[in-house]
């Protein structure tokens, strides 16, 4: 069967299946199990209403449990075991973690990830804030916003191709076709640089790609927050003789502090999961390894599920503080 047909059938089966499940299970509850008739009508209605939420929730809970909650536990278990040749698993305690700690590649990934964690959220938020503030006050602001926002729609892989062309290097005697080298040579550089293979700085050239993508996201959220600032506070500051910079840094930024924090943490999570950019542009060579790509290497190239799972757990541990913070915020908001 052709995949297109299979896809169409999946849509139909999926949609009909879902609707059918919800409809029939509700009918069953109301008409067969606890009919709202007869001597026990009142009790039946109450019982039906106790069960109904779980009918509505069941498919989603099942999928969430199977596809997100169970893997966390299973990955933890895998990280504490090793595969025995010929099938089965063997409990090895923390040995996978020990082995991982001894690998220089792991520490390189950790170091780079820390750099990414500092640089990308900071610069994306800063550029986003700048763009939000500037575009708010001009006539073609909305157009400018959608153009800066556009990279959000581009895949990491597409962005990798786009930026690889920017970073392209040709021998010194040829015309440079990469913008960066062309500018560098025009400014009097002696040799075209191979931006992506020069250790340490090459990580930053990869980070630029993610900053380029994430700035639009930061801008959209922060721009909405800036518009929510009460007009009076700004007007009062003008009356008191504040200049535009003071208004921005002393009046506006403090009022949107929480939103800035939200943007920062959201980008932090994206950074922790960053895989495609590194995978497509350098594949972790030339000291650009990051955790997510290290993990992919271990799982699918080295076929070492133990160490791969251990590094996945490391990513999970790094995400943990934000997870807890988010949950606490959400609960506080609901009260």
């Amino acid at each position, binding site marked *: 069967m052709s995949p297109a047909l299979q896809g169409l059938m999946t849509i139909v089966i999926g949609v009909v299946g879902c609707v059918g499940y919800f409809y029939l299970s509700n009918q069953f509850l109301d008409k067969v199990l606890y009919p709202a008739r007869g001597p026990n009508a009142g009790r039946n209605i109450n019982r039906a209403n106790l069960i109904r939420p779980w009918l509505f929730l069941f498919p*989603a809970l099942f999928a*969430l449990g199977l596809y997100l909650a169970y893997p966390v536990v299973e990955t933890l278990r895998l990280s504490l075991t090793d595969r025995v040749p010929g099938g089965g698993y063997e409990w090895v305690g923390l040995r996978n973690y020990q082995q991982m700690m001894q690998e220089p590649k792991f520490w390189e990934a950790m170091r780079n990830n820390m750099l990414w964690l500092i640089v990308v959220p900071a610069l994306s938020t800063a550029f986003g804030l700048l763009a939000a503030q*500037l575009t708010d006050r001009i006539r073609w602001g909305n157009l400018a916003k959608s153009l800066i926002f556009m990279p959000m*729609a581009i895949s990491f892989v597409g962005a990798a*191709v786009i930026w690889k062309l920017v970073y392209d290097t040709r021998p010194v005697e040829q015309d440079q076709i990469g913008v960066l080298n062309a500018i560098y040579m025009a400014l009097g550089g002696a040799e075209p640089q191979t931006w992506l293979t020069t250790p340490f700085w090459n990580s930053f050239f990869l980070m630029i790609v993610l900053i380029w993508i994430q700035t639009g996201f930061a801008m959209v959220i922060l721009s909405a927050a800036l518009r929510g600032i009460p007009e009076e506070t700004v007007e009062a500051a003008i009356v008191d003789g504040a200049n535009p910079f003071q208004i921005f840094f002393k009046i506006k930024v403090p009022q949107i502090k929480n939103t800035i924090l939200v943007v920062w943490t959201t980008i932090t999570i994206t950074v922790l999961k960053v895989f495609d950019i590194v995978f497509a542009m350098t594949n972790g060579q030339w000291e650009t390894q990051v955790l997510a790509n290290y993990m992919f290497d271990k799982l699918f190239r080295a076929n070492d599920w133990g160490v791969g799972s251990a590094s*996945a757990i490391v990513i999970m541990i790094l995400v943990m503080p934000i997870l807890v913070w988010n949950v606490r915020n959400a609960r506080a908001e609901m009260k």
Partner: protein
Amino acid sequence: MNNIAGSRSALVWIVNLCVLGLVCLWLFPTFGLFVSSFRTADQIATSGWWRAMFASEQNLTLRTAPPESQVQQGDLYVIEGNLFGDNPDAVISVWGVSSRDIDAYTPGETAELRRGGEITVQADGGYRLVNTEAFEGNRGPRVFVTATTPPELTFQNYKNILFDPANVDGMAKAFFNTLTVTIPATIIPILVAAFAAYALAWMDFPGRALLIAAVVGLLVVPLQLALIPLLKLHLGVGIGKSYLGIWLAHTGFGLPLAIYLLRNYMAGLPRDIIENARVDGATDFQIFTKIILPLSFPALASFAIFQFLWTWNDLLVAKVFLIDASGQTTVMTAQIVELMGTRGGNWEILATAAFVSIAVPLLVFFAMQKYLVRGLLAGSVK
């Protein structure tokens, strides 16, 4: 608004310029790839894409027609023609007959050939080769020219990538594979999530707050953790690496955001409508399908766009749950990464392939931006 009168106009100018600079900076890289996808391989390799709009000066090595085309005029043997063949739009500024001295002559001048004879080259590429003896050999002598060629944009790259079935680097198959992954993976989670979101927003039951907190928590769980356990599971139950597998995986990974977005939106709907419907005897199922679902359209659209962009652009999930050794089910992102490895220097292929995959999300983005922004604002945990 927040400026003191007088300093206003100068400041507005500066702001406008800053924004213009920022926009150019953000647009420049994408635009470069876009322009490159319309240039020929030679053009991309010899000059930067920003030159594509202007006539470019290139150093070319060309040959005259072979000796067999010579004609005898009196006691002279002559070969005449145009160095640029059928495309005589180029203009020669200088030329030469030796690779060490490519700018020895200006158009109209005559040069001595080492193998005997003289050649005159005109600015438009026309040449006249004259010798007292017959030319020998089977190739004409080389002429080195520095010529200004007019800009030339072509659709050939797109034809090769999309419509040439013999092209192994073609994207047509990958395009349809991506589409096959994306559509079910976008539609199915919406339905599952909508019911759950309704229950979490408008039904009272013990443990509701806990479940909402759990959804918020799952929102940030890295899907990296799910790769091996789920692949094991899929292989165990016989789904293996297949479309069904990736549809299920995308559904699972998309659910937290879907539930979260939809619940927040539904919880904000007016309580009166729902309670009136309850009083009138509507069941929860009717309230959901007749009232909540139509009213929630903006939130549904937001999530649909997110999920579409995310599944279309995804590489990792496809690599793990779909693409097998046969390579028949490769998606565009994976194919591009492959091309970056095998065709790293062939920018005409890379640029075109990348743009084929970028085009659809960009269309969706510009058409449905309103919903995307709304979803972002609702979806970032406040």
